[in-house]
């Protein structure tokens, strides 16, 4: 009987196991060779029934080595109890575990595609610890994502420090929002003037159902070509003419838009503030 093993990226574990399996038993040599072919180690793997006992014994040895490093005593005891169990049982428990993690993780994964939770050598394979491990790995993946986003997170390692950094960053962003909204409220009268101008353009752009690239173009063109104080209302004909010319062009890249928005606001500042002061 032959249980098919699945590929796994546990190359470093393979080396660790090879260091444990110091005794150069012939059968074990062939076992190791087989494992390197497949590239995976699984507690539930076996390729010949005669070798099962040897595998179990050596796993116990490896286990005792591991005990000093990991120190999860209750899990190791569970593992020892499981030593007597047959391969079928562990296989079914793994399948059951993968089912549980399937329902846990996401519903988008199709039913026929199991999530195989790898049981690493020396770690327990009962349901709860596998679930724990899967959860922890998911969490650490997300923390890595956060680490890329939050600046200055690279220096701090460990979950607690990183979470502190993240919390500080979120707080600082919220304070910045508050501060900028105070500034905006102070700038209220000029804001009103320009908001009216800008918002009529944008509203009309929305109402004519222009695609977003075109509306961007519209804002840019209007700000540069028409001086703001003369612009009471926008003609629909103007919008349509601009629409026909710019419909084909989709070269507005996102970075280009950043520059253009800056230029838009610069235009705001140069054209309209000067006009505002001249009107007074």
């Amino acid at each position, binding site marked *: 009987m032959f249980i098919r093993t699945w590929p796994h*990226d546990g190359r470093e574990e393979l080396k660790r196991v090879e260091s444990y399996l110091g005794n150069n038993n012939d059968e074990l040599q062939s076992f190791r060779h087989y494992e390197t072919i497949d590239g995976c180690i699984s507690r539930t793997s076996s390729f010949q029934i005669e070798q099962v006992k040897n595998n179990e014994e050596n796993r116990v040895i490896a286990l005792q080595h591991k005990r000093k490093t990991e120190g999860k005593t209750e899990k190791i005891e569970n593992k020892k109890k499981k030593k007597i169990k047959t391969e079928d049982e562990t296989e079914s428990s793994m399948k059951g575990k993968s089912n549980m993690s399937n329902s*846990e*993780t*996401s*519903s*988008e*994964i199709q039913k026929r595609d199991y*999530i195989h*939770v*790898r049981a690493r050598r020396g770690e327990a394979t009962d349901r*709860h610890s596998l679930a*724990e491990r*899967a*959860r922890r*790995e*998911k*969490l650490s*993946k*997300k*923390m890595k994502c*956060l680490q890329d*986003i*939050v600046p200055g997170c690279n220096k701090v390692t460990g*979950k*607690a420090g990183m*979470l*502190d950094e*993240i*919390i500080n960053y*979120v707080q600082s*962003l*919220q304070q910045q*929002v*508050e501060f*900028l*909204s105070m*500034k*905006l*409220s*102070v*700038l*209220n*009268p000029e*804001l009103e003037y320009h*908001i009216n101008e*800008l*918002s009529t353009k*944008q*509203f009309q752009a929305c109402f004519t159902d222009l695609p*977003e690239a075109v509306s*961007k173009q519209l*804002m840019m063109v209007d700000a540069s070509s028409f001086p703001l104080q003369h612009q009471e209302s926008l003609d629909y004909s103007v919008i349509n003419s601009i629409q026909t010319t710019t419909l084909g062009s989709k070269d507005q890249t996102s970075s280009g*838009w*950043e520059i253009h*928005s800056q230029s*838009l*606001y*610069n235009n*705001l*500042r140069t054209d309209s503030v000067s006009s505002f002061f001249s009107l007074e």
Partner: protein
Amino acid sequence: MASADKPINTDVPEKDVFALHFLQSLSNLRRQNTFNSPEKTNDRVKKIKKAAYVSMARAAGGTNRLWSRALLRRAAKENNKIVRFPRRKKRVTCLRRRSNRRDPVEEEEAERLRNLVPGGGGMGTSKLMEETAHYIKCLSMQVKVMQCLVDGLAPK
């Protein structure tokens, strides 16, 4: 490896979407008569701040993100309006009730994060991390937009 997730999606729309929503909400604020009075600066500040958050939630998350839904719901409750969201297919809350989801070591910090991120109370820790990532991106984009606006309007 362990679980075959699709990659975590934290895409945020471009700056102009945020700008559009924010300016629209500001112009809506203008229409209110009590807004332009020179006194009551605190009220004005609060309204602008709330408008900033609401427009950010609408621009970035819409109703697809938990934090934006929580924000919009909270804002609507303050205005005594009832907001109805379309029912999501995935039952978000049922996942949380499973046992052994919280690790007590990281839980105090997660609690602080929950207080900061809107809608944090109803999420498990792993979902909280995703939402925090998206929330941080949206917040930084909103800050950029507001900074641009302030710079554009500041007197020379």
